[in-house]
């Protein structure tokens, strides 16, 4: 293992990276070193993020955009600095296009209610794909109930790849929005977002991209992608939970009414009427998640400093190694075998329920996800009640995959 991992240092110093994550030193179930393979559910946080949030509470906790005092000024600077970091992450034109939300889910709901709802008529169509996370299904279903619009679903193949031609054929004059996931959390599939956006533009249909699983693993350039909305969550990319962002082009955001009312989002309030604040504050009612935003900004800096090239390089090695080792396990079926994949391997093991696999490998220190991964239609498509899933981050090691494979062997011994 020494020699294998030392080669990694040419590209990414994995051990130096691991040192930045205190939780990786943990032991679980008495004495087992933690092997954290549930990164797609939520990644771990580096010290830089933890310390930045701690520092805010210790030294300059204050509300933002409200006070003339020094602490408030400092807090506002850090908060808006984080917005600039997110702008850079997505290569957005302006910080006016970056709206802080509670996460991807809230960003999608914001677009559903503030952008699409006023534009929808009965019989209009919203087009999504079969591999969406529930967060990119349910807000649209709710909107359909409210407006009489219809939800259409573009099919996938048995490798878990989107059938782009079929999606294109489903677009018509009633299609008012396309919602698609950039990287599938359940299958790992990386979708051809740019291609879909190009097709959608020919029909003048806006595209919303659920980018929650994309930003930790790849450079995202919203201008190059050509999408209209891009939604992300900080906690999938080493930042805190409870914070994320919606990116949308300024002209679109300008055309949208506010979503929630309250403080911060107003310019002037009287009982006769209220004028709204400028972008992006128009969509940020109430005191925001300040420490979360600061942690989010630091997570972006963490990605920049670590370098996406090295991250991708390590993740691809982990994915290849895990795929090879797992394919050799008797009775194991990998669910999601797309050509372009993120570092996610969903699987089933004949004769063993995912729940039991999860419990047994956990006993050997390996944290994996089991269940429907908030993508029940994907489970229905592959005709499985649930899957087990390993998902990697660049701090994972190939010998951790060996530990997992051993633990999987123990699970087979016990269950099959």
């Amino acid at each position, binding site marked *: 293992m020494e020699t294998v991992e030392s080669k990694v240092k040419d590209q990414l110093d994995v051990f130096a990276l691991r040192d930045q994550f205190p939780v990786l030193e943990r032991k679980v179930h008495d004495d087992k070193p933690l092997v954290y393979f549930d990164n797609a559910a939520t990644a771990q946080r580096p010290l830089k993020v933890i310390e930045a949030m701690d520092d805010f509470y210790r030294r300059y906790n204050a509300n933002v955009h409200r006070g003339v005092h020094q602490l408030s000024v400092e807090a506002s600077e850090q908060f808006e600095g984080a917005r600039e970091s997110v702008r850079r992450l997505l290569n957005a034109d302006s910080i006016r296009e970056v709206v802080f939300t509670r996460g991807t889910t809230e960003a999608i709901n914001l677009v559903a209610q503030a952008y699409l709802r006023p534009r929808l008529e009965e019989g209009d169509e919203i087009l999504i794909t079969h591999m969406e996370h529930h967060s990119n299904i349910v807000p649209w279903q709710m909107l359909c109930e409210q407006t009489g619009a219809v939800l259409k679903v573009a099919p996938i193949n048995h490798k878990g790849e989107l059938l782009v031609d079929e999606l294109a054929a489903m677009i018509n004059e009633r299609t008012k929005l396309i919602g698609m996931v950039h990287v599938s959390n359940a299958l790992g599939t990386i979708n051809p977002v740019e291609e879909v956006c190009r097709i959608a533009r020919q029909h003048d249909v806006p595209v919303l991209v659920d980018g929650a699983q994309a930003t930790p693993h790849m450079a995202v350039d919203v201008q190059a992608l050509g999408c209209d909305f891009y939604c992300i969550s900080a906690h999938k990319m080493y930042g805190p939970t409870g914070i994320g962002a919606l990116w949308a082009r300024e002209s679109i955001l300008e055309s949208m009414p506010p979503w929630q009312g309250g403080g911060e989002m107003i310019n002037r309030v009287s009982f006769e009427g209220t004028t709204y604040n400028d972008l992006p504050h128009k969509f940020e009612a109430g005191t925001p998640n300040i420490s979360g935003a600061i942690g989010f900004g630091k997570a972006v800096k963490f990605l920049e400093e670590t370098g996406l090239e090295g991250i991708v390089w390590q993740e691809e090695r982990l994915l290849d190694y895990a795929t090879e080792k797992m394919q050799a396990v008797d009775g194991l079926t990998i669910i999601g075998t797309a050509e372009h994949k993120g570092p996610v391997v969903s699987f089933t093991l004949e004769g063993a329920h995912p*729940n039991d696999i999860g419990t047994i490998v956990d006993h050997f220190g390996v944290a994996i996800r089991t269940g429907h991964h908030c993508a029940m239609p994907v489970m229905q498509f592959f005709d499985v009640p649930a899957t087990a899933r390993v998902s990697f981050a660049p701090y994972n090691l190939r010998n951790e995959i060996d530990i997992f494979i051993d633990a999987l062997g123990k699970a087979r011994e016990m269950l099959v």
Partner: protein
Amino acid sequence: MLDQLYQQVILDHNRSPHHYGSLAGATHSARGQDALCGDDILVELRLTDGRVEEAAFSGEACVITTASASMLMDWLVGRSRTEVETAYERFGQLLEDPERPDDSELGDINHLRAVSGFPARVRNALLPWRTVLRAFKERGIA
């Protein structure tokens, strides 16, 4: 602890569950689903004079849910709804308190108490019980 959870009795019930299949002449039934875990079972009961004459379950589930259902079906025969409700409460207490002595009334079901060391799996042990209790309420086969 893992060996306790997946002890032989439980694995045997999982491999060859008792009362597995559909029940002719069922008077009560309910489906028990745990979407998060992927468990999906159907419980069918035939009641005569307020007592379970025969019970069966079917479906796909993890070891813990399957073993719990299998043991429960064995236990159910001859019981009334009130007896099941009382036993459900006692089973719940058994899973909450590892110090509590085995409950002789519950027989084989005591083998499941190791689940208390795996809080994420308690829901699986309880699913068959909850489904049976719902079956009592929602009579009739669809």
